[in-house]
């Protein structure tokens, strides 16, 4: 009887994770794709040095970060995948969402400074375990770079 309750609890968590997690992921991807279109004109590169045409520009550090949590379904699928090895797609999409969201937020910051270019972009990823003992819990992604702010027109 007790194990039956446990099984029921497990299945409930699994389906909650599956439905809500999928919905959250779909909505998030929609918003990412829409905003990527919107910020397409803000160029982000990993170039280390500004090219000569940016003489006269100011530099400003811009960053964007996001913490995204896994859902229960993803954790279970990843656990099963661990047994046989191979790609863990559920985690791949999690990190993909986090990276793209972090870049978008950085671009937003650059736009607020009136900059069109962000160079030397770098990523920093860290695991936030929270109270999920094993598994990844949630991930934080930070994207940062140097925005090249054009000088004011009347200067």
């Amino acid at each position, binding site marked *: 009887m007790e194990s039956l309750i446990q099984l029921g609890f497990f299945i409930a968590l699994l389906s909650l994770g599956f439905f809500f997690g999928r919905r959250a992921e779909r909505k998030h991807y929609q918003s990412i794709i829409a905003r990527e279109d919107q910020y397409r004109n803000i160029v982000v590169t990993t170039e280390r040095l500004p090219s000569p045409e940016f003489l*006269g520009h100011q530099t400003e550090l811009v960053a964007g970060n996001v913490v995204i949590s896994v859902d229960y379904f993803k954790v279970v699928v990843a656990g099963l995948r661990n047994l046989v090895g191979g790609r863990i797609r559920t985690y791949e999409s999690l990190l993909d969402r986090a990276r793209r969201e972090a870049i978008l937020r950085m671009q937003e910051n650059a736009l607020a400074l009136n900059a069109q270019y962000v160079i030397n972009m*770098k990523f920093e990823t860290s695991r936030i375990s929270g109270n*999920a003992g094993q598994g990844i819990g949630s991930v934080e992604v930070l994207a940062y770079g140097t925005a090249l702010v054009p000088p004011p027109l009347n200067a």
Partner: protein
Amino acid sequence: MIISNIEVIPNKRVVEHLGLVQGSTVRAKHAGKDIMAGFKNIFGGELGAYTELLQESREEAIKRMSEQAEAIGANAVVNVRFSTSAIAAGASEILAYGTAVRVEDR
């Protein structure tokens, strides 16, 4: 104070290198938020409270770094890098470090 993660700043010339400066902070969120995050681990989605916390911590780390740079007479910190590590359950350390320099207009 110019803070940048590139080495060369347009229109400026580095006149003096003053060495490495750093700033760090260790933060934790209160237990209630941690419990909420635990629930989120079932449903998935963004943890807004943590995003905010880490952003604030990073700003604090940058502030401490620039204070240190100012104390040794620098007016810019170049090649800034960030590093995050979870040092205990529920607490994370954020470090910002870079090279303190004195720059002049070219």
